[in-house]
């Protein structure tokens, strides 16, 4: 019987090794280890054995059974693994096919520019002030040292609604309103972005509606050198550390002294090209020390308080920064245009 068991073991192991599918393996399991299998049969025949032989054969039979079972399990693992590999091989896909699209929109380029400027100045302690787009003549002009009869307030240049109301021509009235709200006390540090309107025919460089973003700082010791330092930080962050800035004297009714700021031309590096009209410089913004008349009208003692203000056009900055060649693109909202600004820099 011992020999028979050994034979069975060898025979079964050989068959297991030769098996090539899980089904075949299962058949072997049933054939050898099943209730009707030869090992069971051997065990069933143990009644005929002597008391001495019985435990020996019993132990041997269990050994054989376990050896076969272990072999089957090993083989089964092996076959299963192979089956998984085979299945995966058949499941392979073309990873170069496009994915299921997720719709992504984006900021309008002007919003991108405005938020970038806002964030830059928020970091420097500024708040964002907003005001009405329909303004009183007083806040749009008079409070900014542009009295009635001033040539800069020609009816032809502004969209008047009545004698007293017009679409604001700049965001400066927000400055006047903010100062008035502060009741003659400092400090004020604000950025005023918003839509403004002028009576221009729309063409590649003019738009009857456009954006402006202005800044105002009023305090007891605000110096022109502070304006220069602030604009320097702004220009370098906005346009790059390698850009030079240049301040030129200029004229605005609401500032004295007045400043115009140029940055060195990125295209030619300052040597002169068509973009900078051969000058090497590109005009970016207007600024200056707040005119004492403006401070006084808003209730500030101009002997005690000084301030600086600056203003720029997001369209112009976007045009320079992104190379946009026609201002009308910003208001046409062609999706082929808008899509190009979904990239975060």
């Amino acid at each position, binding site marked *: 019987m011992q020999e028979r068991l050994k034979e069975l073991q060898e025979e079964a192991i050989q068959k297991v090794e030769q098996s090539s599918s899980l089904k075949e393996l299962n058949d072997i399991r049933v054939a050898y280890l099943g209730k009707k299998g030869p090992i069971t049969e051997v065990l069933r025949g143990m009644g005929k054995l002597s008391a001495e032989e019985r435990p020996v054969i019993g132990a041997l039979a269990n050994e054989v059974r376990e050896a076969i079972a272990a072999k089957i399990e090993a083989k089964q693992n092996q076959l299963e693994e192979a089956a998984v590999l085979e299945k995966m091989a058949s499941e392979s896909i073309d990873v170069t096919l496009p994915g*299921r*699209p997720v*719709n992504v*929109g*984006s*900021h*309008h380029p002007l*919003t991108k520019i405005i*938020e970038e400027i*806002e964030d830059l*100045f*928020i*970091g420097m*302690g*500024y*708040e*964002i002030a*907003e005001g009405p*787009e*329909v303004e009183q003549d007083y806040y749009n002009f008079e409070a900014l040292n542009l009295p009635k009869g001033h*040539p800069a307030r020609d*009816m032809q240049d502004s*969209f*008047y*609604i*009545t*004698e007293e*109301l017009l*679409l604001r021509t700049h965001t400066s009235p927000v400055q006047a309103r903010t100062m008035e709200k502060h009741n003659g006390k400092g*400090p004020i540090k604000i950025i005023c972005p918003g*839509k403004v309107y002028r*009576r221009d025919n729309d063409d590649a460089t003019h738009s*009857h*509606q456009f954006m402006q973003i202005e800044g105002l700082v009023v305090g007891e*010791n605000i*110096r*022109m*050198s*502070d304006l*220069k*330092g602030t604009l320097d930080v702004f220009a370098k962050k906005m346009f790059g550390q390698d850009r030079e800035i*240049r*301040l*030129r*004297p*200029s*004229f605005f009714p609401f500032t*004295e*002294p*007045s400043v115009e700021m140029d940055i060195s031309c990125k295209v030619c590096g300052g040597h002169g090209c068509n973009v900078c*009209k*051969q000058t090497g410089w590109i005009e970016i913004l207007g600024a200056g*020390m707040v005119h004492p008349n403006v401070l006084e009208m808003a209730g500030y003692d101009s002997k005690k308080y*000084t301030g600086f203000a600056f203003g720029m056009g997001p369209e112009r900055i976007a045009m320079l920064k992104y190379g946009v060649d026609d201002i009308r693109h910003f*208001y046409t*909202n*062609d*999706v*082929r245009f*808008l899509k190009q600004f979904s990239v975060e820099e």
Partner: protein
Amino acid sequence: MFVSYKWLQDYVDLTGVSANELAEKITKSGIEVEGVEILNEGIKGVVVGHVVERVQHPNADKLSKCQVDIGEGEPVQIICGAPNVAQGQKVAVAKVGAILPGNFKIKKAKLRGEESNGMICSLQELGMEGKIVPKEYSEGIFVFPADAEVGADALALLNRDDEVLELGLTPNRADCLSMLGVAYEVAAILGREVKLPETSLESLSEKATDYVKVVVEATEDNPLYVAKMIKNVKIGPSPLWMQTRLMSAGIRPHNNVVDITNYILLEYGQPLHAFDYDRLGSKEILVRRANDGEKFVTLDDVERTLTADHLVITNGTEPVALAGVMGGANSEVTSDTTTVLLEAAYFNGATVRKASKDHGLRSEASARFEKGVDPNRVRVAGERAAYLMAKYAGGEVLEGAAEVDTLTVEPAVVSVTLEKINRVLGTGLEMKDVEAIFDRLQFGVSVEGDTVTVTAPTRRGDIKIEEDLLEEVARLFGYDNIPKTLPIGSTTPGKLSEYQKKRRVVRAYLEGAGLYQAVTYSLTSEEKASQFAMEKRDFIRLAMPMSEDRSILRLSILPQLLEVLKYNSARQNDSLAVYETGNVFLSNGVDVLPEEKEHLAGAITGLWNNHSWQGEKKPVDFFVLKGILEGLFAKLGLTERVAYVQAQVEGMHPGRTAEIRLDGSKIGFAGQLHPSVQKDLDLKDTYVFELSLKAVLGVETEALQYQSIPRYPSITRDIALVVNRETVSGTLKDIIVKAGSPLLKEAYVFDLYEGDKMEEGKKSIAFSLKYVDPERTLTDEEVTKVHDRVLEALKEQAGAVLRG
């Protein structure tokens, strides 16, 4: 203002400063030089030639065959097409090998069988604009004076070996509308002297007042009128140097007398006018306001109808000039003029502006009066013109002038302390630096302690207050030399307001959901202004719109967004999602500021999903749009407070539109565009919304508070309800939530069936209900008790029965 570099050297020594260097210095100290034009750029090989013979070209009617001496031995033959070429003329000849503007190279040529060795040039061919070329030469070649030297550089003779600086003047610097004004500025920048022009001359013993009497009625408009008399003038061309200087400044030469007045306008910034004394018809000048309806023919031969707003110079009765704007045809200087009445006057800027605007006559003269001329330069400009007329028009100047002078000229005296200068500029200047700056500007300066007192010359009418002095100091010290600092003192926290913060959340969310931000115009047409408007108000209309399409302030954003869809759809982009945030304008009545309300609008059209290779294509529908809105309200913590109610909105699909309510108040709407609107705009199915962003972002929301995650399992019961077709799921859900609370934690629709297996007029809606108790495990019995209550309520309140 065009400034000739060569001419400027009459007044300031420019040794060692090139035109470009000068431009840079002027720009940096306050006047932007917008360009430097090299007048002879790209031109070479043009000389003075003498036409020794001119005959008709044998084979061409319109051509001349000329023999021209160009100072190189034998005369050369040149074929010329100009009608005015004649024997004996001195002309500009582009020799063979010469280069003319546009890189036009002159070569030997044969014209209709005749050899041509060069070209006789017009001024236009030498790069000058037709409008500044003297009229007699505008249709042909230019003719030099007879004394021009043959073979000499023609461009040098024409003063084209010059550079012109174009100054972009800000309104405060009207003083630089003259060569002398620029000279003062340049002298201050360079620290050099100003040389003044010659004016002294010998007068006749006859007095101007013997010839003319001046009366000014309107002294406010005309506080100073000076009439000088010049006799025996001979009208002819002005000297070539004067003509070329005028041309370089953009003014066309006419004759010696007119050219001299224009020359003085450029030199002193003082407009003058020359009348033909003999044509005045009287011995009187009377300055008065015009009568309403008075007619007058200006020297451009246009009859003008005047009003009492306009100031006129008259001969006592008839107008002979529109003051400061244009002279009259009746008294114009002609080739026969022998006696000139020369007007040098100070006219009020506003009066001149009114007249030049009313008649559309903006001129070099009117522009200068409008901006204000130097009151102290009126007389001297007249003297200088008389001097030039004596010198270049053979005139004899009568002694003195007939004048009316009610002008009081007080130079501005302004003080400032050194402490203030340094405090405001952030500089560390010393008093001697400041004094030196005002010296260079030729301002009067006196110093007492820390205070500097400055007397500004009358040419600088812009200097009025101490800040003006700060600017003078800053710009001549150099903006480059001011240090860079940042504000010191009490700090302010930089931040966005709550509203601004939430608006950014809204934008970021919508963009994440696939919508592009659009920015459109606030001005629109009457037709569009009120479309989709949530509130009806009066239109806010511009007083002077540029077009009907941009005449009224919008009451809603959607019409503009639909334009965006239409524009893109017409360009093969018919699947699109856009949104805009912006103000709408609600009238509060005439002369009252309107209410500006920020709105949010969005529009989606075409396909929402297009995963083509897997065959997934999903057009937009109401629930895509609603999903976007639900996500938005979830983001803002408003989910529980927002409700959607079936609604009718003009322009919208009557069955597919919802009013959106926040805490029970209407804040906007969402739905499908009316099919006819879609068709008009040529759009595919389009879903839109517009809501008051102000209302959405303005509400208080609860602070974020953590709620513990239930530790006990929930029990889910699904129910399919049969209800009338009109019953909306929202009603059922409300009933479920009310009856099921507090154990009911969630209820959502998971199926809707309206097919033919349903009884007529009925539909089936299936809800999944989730019950949970945060404190313990619920038993089946407990859930059943509540669930039965829910079913009961549904039956009672909505006639809903379980589907069998």
